[in-house]
């Protein structure tokens, strides 16, 4: 009942024009960048961080969440209409969605995707509401050793996604190491400054996020030379037929459950969820041969899954302060930037923020459904925007944003340098998300390590003698060793 009272309070906040505006802006931006080429929700949130700096924390997180799940709707458009997934999480949608579009059923594909996404987003939010508070309450009993081990789980799990475990772990370590630059907050001495006074405050999270996700992403996309897709298809009849509904109802349901559960797991986000939902659907279908030729279940399941996963990924972020995906890692960084302490206390100390965001997700999904059913055709025109016109504007926005947050030209140099580094990171298949997560989680990791070892009078045994911490370390060990065992039997499959 407590949750319902909090939720009512959250909805009360949404009645204020300001917060409704943040929600609307978020889902609109998400919808647009989901459809635009070469820019995803991580980049959009990173680039918008400077604009929200010093502003309303609740409103900004409502907006960022809107961008995350809104992008899942937007990415569908490109997948269905031109078979070019706007987001990696809509790759599976392109398989059957584009075939449906070629058969003149683009409207039905987009319609079922929007309805499935709405259902999944709403049920996922319900799951978030039911699962996160007890998880947070349980985690309140966590001491420093448990936190130390939990951060290790989060970092290793996120390292699994992308170019492979070793590369992911390398990037996580690089992020952790960068975070140690500057003043050691607990002792007060400086470290790793190499005589450079401007490094005293360390490398700013915001600058690094904009550099890696904004500049690095742009340079990588420029190299690929994104050609504008030819959209010759028109979108009409967005309401799926009765038969479509009957065929896809269980696909949506299964996609929702799979997506949410995978989203909750640290490290696995919307992309993996959509892959698994598609595979499961094909497996249980009576007509598996239709998959890939325009089966509506092949659109409904992954679309429901990616939306449910985007919501599920917020469970560990809000309840434990451990993000489950790259995008939520940036949102966690934003929370810290706003001076909030992420972790289980968030539900107690900043109940307004958490429940405001949860309420906004119900509202946001309704807005997206309303936007998508009648306006899909209009959003489809976004697909004609040329990347060559888009990226110079993104770069200008990065420059303005980074400069404005500290009025510092030094920050612009850091941004340029890390932008180029980010380009090479992408080019050689290293994942960026663990680096950002490492940067965000280092203070928590080091504090927990110090407090734990103070408790144990300098002994590392405390991490294995406390049962929860030991269990978490076993999970970390399993994550690290599982791919090694798998490798003995087969060649690794890379998911980009």
């Amino acid at each position, binding site marked *: 009942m407590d949750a319902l009272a909090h939720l009512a309070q959250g909805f009360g906040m949404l009645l204020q024009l300001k917060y409704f505006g943040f929600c609307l802006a978020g889902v609109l931006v998400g919808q647009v960048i989901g459809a635009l080429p070469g820019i995803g929700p991580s980049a959009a949130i990173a680039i918008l961080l400077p604009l929200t700096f010093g502003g309303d924390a609740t409103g900004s997180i409502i907006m960022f969440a809107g961008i995350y799940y809104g992008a899942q709707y937007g990415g569908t458009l490109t997948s269905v209409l031109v078979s070019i997934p706007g987001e990696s999480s809509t790759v599976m949608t392109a398989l059957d969605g584009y075939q449906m579009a070629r058969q003149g059923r683009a409207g039905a594909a987009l319609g079922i995707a929007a309805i499935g996404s709405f259902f999944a987003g709403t049920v996922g939010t319900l799951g978030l509401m039911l699962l996160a508070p007890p998880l947070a309450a349980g985690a309140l009993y966590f001491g420093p050793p448990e936190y130390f081990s939990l951060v290790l789980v989060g970092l290793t799990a996120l390292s699994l996604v992308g170019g492979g475990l070793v590369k992911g772990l390398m990037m996580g370590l690089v992020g952790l190491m960068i975070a140690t630059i500057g003043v050691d907050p607990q002792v007060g001495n400086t470290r790793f400054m190499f005589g450079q006074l401007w490094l005293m405050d360390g490398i700013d999270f915001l600058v690094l996020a904009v550099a890696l996700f904004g500049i690095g992403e742009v340079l990588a996309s420029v190299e690929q030379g994104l050609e504008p897709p030819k959209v010759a298809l028109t979108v009409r009849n967005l309401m799926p037929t009765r038969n479509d509904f009957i065929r896809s109802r269980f696909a949506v349901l299964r996609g929702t459950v799979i997506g949410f559960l995978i989203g909750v797991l640290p490290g696995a986000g919307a992309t993996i969820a959509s892959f698994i939902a598609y595979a499961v659907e094909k497996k249980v279908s009576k007509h598996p041969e239709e998959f890939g030729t325009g089966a509506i279940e092949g659109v409904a399941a992954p679309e429901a899954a990616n939306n449910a996963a985007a919501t599920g990924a917020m469970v560990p972020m809000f309840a434990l302060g451990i993000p489950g995906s790259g995008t939520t890692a940036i949102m966690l960084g934003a929370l810290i930037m706003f001076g909030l302490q992420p972790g289980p206390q968030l539900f107690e100390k900043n109940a307004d923020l958490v429940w405001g965001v949860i309420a906004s997700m119900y509202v946001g999904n309704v807005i997206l459904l309303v936007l998508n059913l009648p306006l899909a055709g209009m959003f489809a025109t976004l697909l004609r925007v040329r990347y060559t016109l888009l990226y110079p504007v993104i770069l200008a926005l990065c420059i303005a944003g980074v400069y*404005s947050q500290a009025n510092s030209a030094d920050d612009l140099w850091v941004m340029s340098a890390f932008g180029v580094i980010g380009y090479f990171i992408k080019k050689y298949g290293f994942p960026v998300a663990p680096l950002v997560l490492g940067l965000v989680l280092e203070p928590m990791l080091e504090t927990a390590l110090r407090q734990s070892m103070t408790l144990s009078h300098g002994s590392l045994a405390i991490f294995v003698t406390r049962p929860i911490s030991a269990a978490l370390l076993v999970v970390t060990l399993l994550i690290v060793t599982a791919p090694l065992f798998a490798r003995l039997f087969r060649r690794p499959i890379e998911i980009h």
Partner: protein
Amino acid sequence: MKLRGELVASGLCMLFGVLWVAAALGLPYMGEFAPGSGFLPLWLGACLVVLSAVHVVSCLRTQPAHIPAGHWRKVLAVALGLIVCVAVVGSLGFVVAVGAYLLFLLRGVEKESWRTSLGVAASAIVVLFALFHVWLHVPLPTGPWGF
């Protein structure tokens, strides 16, 4: 191409790790009971060195897939342009420096028409200047001419 790049990337990571280990050795490893400033960075650096070595070995054992050469000249132009823009933005101001950079990208690099280039550059600058300077009241760098 990709193999060489991966090896260079791993080498740089290894160097980064060695640098951290070396610098951490100069910091206190343990305080009274709790780890000192050098404890965690030392282990992080050491782990990075080990993982980089593992990656080098696995790269040499399994030839990484070839990546087709992209428009690297464009990447170079965009990056160099950014560096020049950052170098002059303090003295010339946001409007002139970033405006010129946008024109360089649109007209020079992407060969858009003058009309499109000027239109996109001018509207982007006006919107950004209004957004940051006027609406959010955060100062952007200004030149001797006040904008």
